[in-house]
């Protein structure tokens, strides 16, 4: 249990870059242009990796530390192929730079559960190339053939039993060419991947040393809060800047486009200054927008013809021939990210450069946006990513960066913009609400022969990745439907895009987090209509031996699907594949006489191909259950008078300690490349519970959050 303490002692002098009080000076050392060059060592074979003469192995990462564990998982992959001694490995956050861009997306961002799966080959090659160079350096020094040298735990071993440490070899190894295609290990030889490791960032987090974005400070910095329109389309008509300036500590009031910034010596003074502005806002552009009118608007959109996202086989003919047709509608609400650390960003705009410190999930977007706002070339914009107090997709949005850059430019000094919790709820980019109508035809053997699915929702991708939106189809909006795990011979998917003033964005598991509820609830309804067991019914629509088939089979067995339950309890199951992994849940619940639901146990099975860091997978799977349950039971953003009415956590209930069930995680590995983790573990939670509720009560809850009044 004290292993991490030992580790911390070892790395005490060179721990996380941004730990400690010497913050600003430590960050100065690392600038984008020096990434490829040696910093403290002659051996830096890649921007991701440097090995010091003191044996310290530094892995530089470009991925945001959101607590998902990739700041340990990424070093584990590199260390594995490097044959490093794990206790000598440390991790540092790099400035935004070209080598850290996603090799698939060509942008530096942390999302889509991509940190490892998009770099699986790249990370392994970085470690393997360095190992090969070190082994060659030893062979050269010993004047023996390379084949006689073996790398092991930070050393190269001579056949005679002597050895040279990696630190001793840095000088010679650094002069060798970097091999492009070094041989990679066979999975059975792994000694770090797949083993229990303590997360490298946890000791600092427990000790209170971690400096999150909101904690950052630099000399001469001021803090700003911004007054933004309380309703869609509103603009400030008048405000009292003098009253704000009269607050002790307020430095300046700055008019921004459609908003007003108050800069002060302290956060509290800035917040008081904003109060004192006493702004009169113009009317909302859509004063009638509220929960009721939105619902009606969604229902109306569902009657419109949609853009055809998928049309396979002959749906009409199949329906005509079907023995039984089932049709149902489902509704999902707007969701807030509700990440605990409020949105923030620090910027310092100078004549020749601009520096950004932010807990951002979108480094490239931040860099490009700052370059555009300042007129500086991109390479003169430094983006330092700070640890984030949650993110779930929201932190790729550059809104706080725009505010911080404009205010710093105006004041000529560093400015940290902080959003209040109320700002966070009001100006979040919500997960879009989504209504759908699904129809399926079953043949006489109980197999689905036709599936027709129409859904309506605003489009996230139209705003952020419009190049992927073709012929009115946002691929994210229909994800989980057009690529559902089940094979349907005749299938039609239609999407009715909505255009609303509500800001929508990516939220953990993105489109899957919505549509899997619909698909997996409906599959359960179809199983019932076919008189089939929900597991057997699903298996009948999966290819035998496929990953989803195996995950479902394994989970059903491990969760004791066919075992009798105590009186009053019931089980439900749901499944999905996304982000190159497959996950499934079994919920075990009870419904009380008053309709109160108790979730006693959740089983989660996940097959992510290769389980790099099992404990982080387990942590994410536990977290997925909790977030999924929170969504199932409570989460919903509300609207009133043309704006967001949900203001704080007291109106946006999250799951609480007493409601957290026993969670059992089953990790499967089919040996394929490492798949995503953070997102695949969420979507099937809510439908597995809804399906269990049906099994217990015969009542089908087709709307989230659950309306438990229906269970009375």
């Amino acid at each position: 249990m004290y292993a991490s303490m030992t580790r911390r002692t070892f790395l005490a002098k060179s721990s996380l870059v941004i730990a400690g009080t010497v913050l600003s000076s430590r960050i100065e050392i690392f600038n984008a242009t020096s990434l490829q060059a040696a910093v403290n060592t002659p051996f830096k074979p890649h921007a991701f990796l440097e090995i010091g003469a003191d044996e310290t192995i530094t892995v530089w990462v470009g991925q945001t530390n959101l607590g998902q564990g990739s700041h340990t998982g990424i070093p584990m992959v590199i260390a594995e192929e490097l044959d490093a001694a794990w206790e000598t490995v440390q991790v540092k956050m790099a400035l935004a730079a070209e080598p850290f861009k996603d090799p698939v997306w060509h942008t530096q961002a942390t999302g889509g559960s991509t940190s490892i799966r998009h770099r699986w080959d790249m990370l392994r090659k970085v470690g393997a190339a360095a190992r090969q160079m070190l082994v060659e350096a030893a062979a050269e020094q010993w004047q023996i053939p390379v084949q006689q040298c073996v790398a092991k735990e930070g050393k190269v071993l001579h056949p005679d039993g002597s050895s040279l440490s990696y630190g001793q070899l840095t000088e010679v190894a650094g002069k060798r060419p970097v091999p492009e295609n070094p041989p990679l290990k066979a999975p059975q030889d792994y000694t770090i991947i797949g083993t229990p490791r303590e997360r490298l960032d946890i000791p600092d987090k427990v000790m209170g040393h971690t400096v999150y974005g909101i904690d950052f400070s630099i000399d001469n910095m001021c803090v700003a809060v911004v007054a933004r329109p309380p309703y869609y389309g509103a603009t400030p008509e008048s405000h009292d800047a003098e009253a704000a300036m009269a607050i002790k500590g307020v430095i300046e009031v700055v008019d921004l486009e459609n908003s007003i910034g108050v800069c002060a010596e302290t956060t509290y003074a800035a917040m008081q200054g904003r109060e004192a502005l006493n702004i009169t806002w113009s009317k909302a552009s859509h004063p009638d927008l509220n929960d009721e009118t939105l619902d009606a608007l969604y229902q109306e959109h569902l009657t419109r013809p949609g853009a055809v996202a998928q049309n396979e086989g002959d749906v009409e003919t199949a329906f005509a021939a079907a023995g039984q047709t089932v049709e149902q509608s489902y509704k999902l609400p707007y969701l807030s990210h509700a990440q605990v650390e409020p949105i923030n960003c620090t910027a310092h705009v100078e004549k020749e450069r601009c520096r950004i410190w932010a807990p951002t999930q979108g480094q490239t977007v931040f860099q490009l946006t700052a370059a555009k706002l300042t007129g500086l070339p991109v390479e003169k914009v430094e983006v330092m990513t700070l640890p984030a107090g949650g993110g779930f997709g929201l932190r790729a949005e550059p809104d706080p960066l725009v505010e911080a850059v404009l205010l710093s430019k105006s004041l000529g000094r560093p400015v940290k913009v902080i959003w209040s919790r109320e700002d966070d709820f009001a100006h979040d980019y919500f997960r879009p609400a989504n209504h759908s109508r699904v129809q399926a035809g079953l043949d006489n053997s109980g197999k689905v022969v036709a599936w027709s699915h129409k859904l309506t929702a605003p489009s996230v991708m139209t705003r952020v990745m419009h190049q992927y939106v073709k012929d009115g189809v946002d691929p994210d909006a229909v994800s989980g439907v057009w690529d559902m795990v089940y094979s349907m011979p005749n299938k039609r998917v239609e999407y009715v895009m909505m255009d609303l003033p509500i800001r929508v964005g990516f939220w953990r598991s993105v489109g899957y987090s919505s549509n899997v509820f619909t698909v997996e609830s409906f599959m359960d309804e179809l199983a019932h209509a076919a008189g089939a067991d929900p597991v057997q019914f699903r298996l009948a629509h999966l290819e035998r031996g496929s990953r989803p088939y195996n995950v479902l089979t394994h989970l059903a067995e491990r969760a004791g699907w066919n075992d009798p339950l105590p009186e009053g309890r019931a089980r439900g199951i749901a499944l999905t594949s996304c982000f190159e992994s497959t996950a499934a849940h079994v919920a075990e619940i009870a419904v009380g006489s008053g309709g109160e639901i108790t979730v006693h146990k959740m089983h989660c099975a996940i097959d992510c191909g290769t389980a790099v860091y099992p404990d982080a997978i387990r942590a994410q799977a536990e977290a997925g259950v909790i977030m999924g349950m929170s969504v199932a039971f409570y989460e919903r953003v509300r609207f009133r008078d043309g704006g967001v009415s949900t203001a704080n956590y007291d109106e946006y209930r999250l799951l609480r300690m007493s409601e957290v069930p026993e969670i059992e995680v089953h990790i499967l590995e089919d040996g394929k490349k490492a798949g995503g983790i953070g997102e695949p573990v969420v979507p099937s939670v809510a439908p597995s519970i809804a399906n269990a509720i049906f099994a217990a009560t015969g009542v089908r809850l087709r709307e989230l959050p659950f309306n438990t009044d229906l269970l009375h």
Partner: protein
Amino acid sequence: MVTLQINGIKKEVDVDSETPLLWVLRDNLGITSVKYTCGIAECGICTVLIDGKAVRSCSIPVKDVGASEITTIEGLPDNHPVKVAWIAKQVPQCGYCQPGIMLQTVDFLSRQPNPSDEQINEAMDDLICRCGSHPRMKKAIRMAAEISSKQGG
């Protein structure tokens, strides 16, 4: 000028005495382990100990603290049972909420050194952790209680 006793050290700060303790700690004294999250005493993430009792620092004006002893996470020794357990059980994900939750745990365990699962649920039910580290918190709380009881015995 307000005088505060923090982690055993006396500090003087020039602030309006109505300022919430949270902002005095963070902005005037640079103790950023105390986190701002909701500002309305709903989430518990800004919790500090005042004379050993968990208090939500966003909602107490600094003038009400008086001569009481304030403890932040830095005020607990590195080998404090709660810190040891939190690392051993690998509790934090993003970690932002953890200092406040750990301090509430310290207060809870001081009153209930050998809690049942139900007592843990009840004592920790008014806290928010968006990442969902709850199962590990529960394990760590039990472990911290065990370490404390061994040390005590």
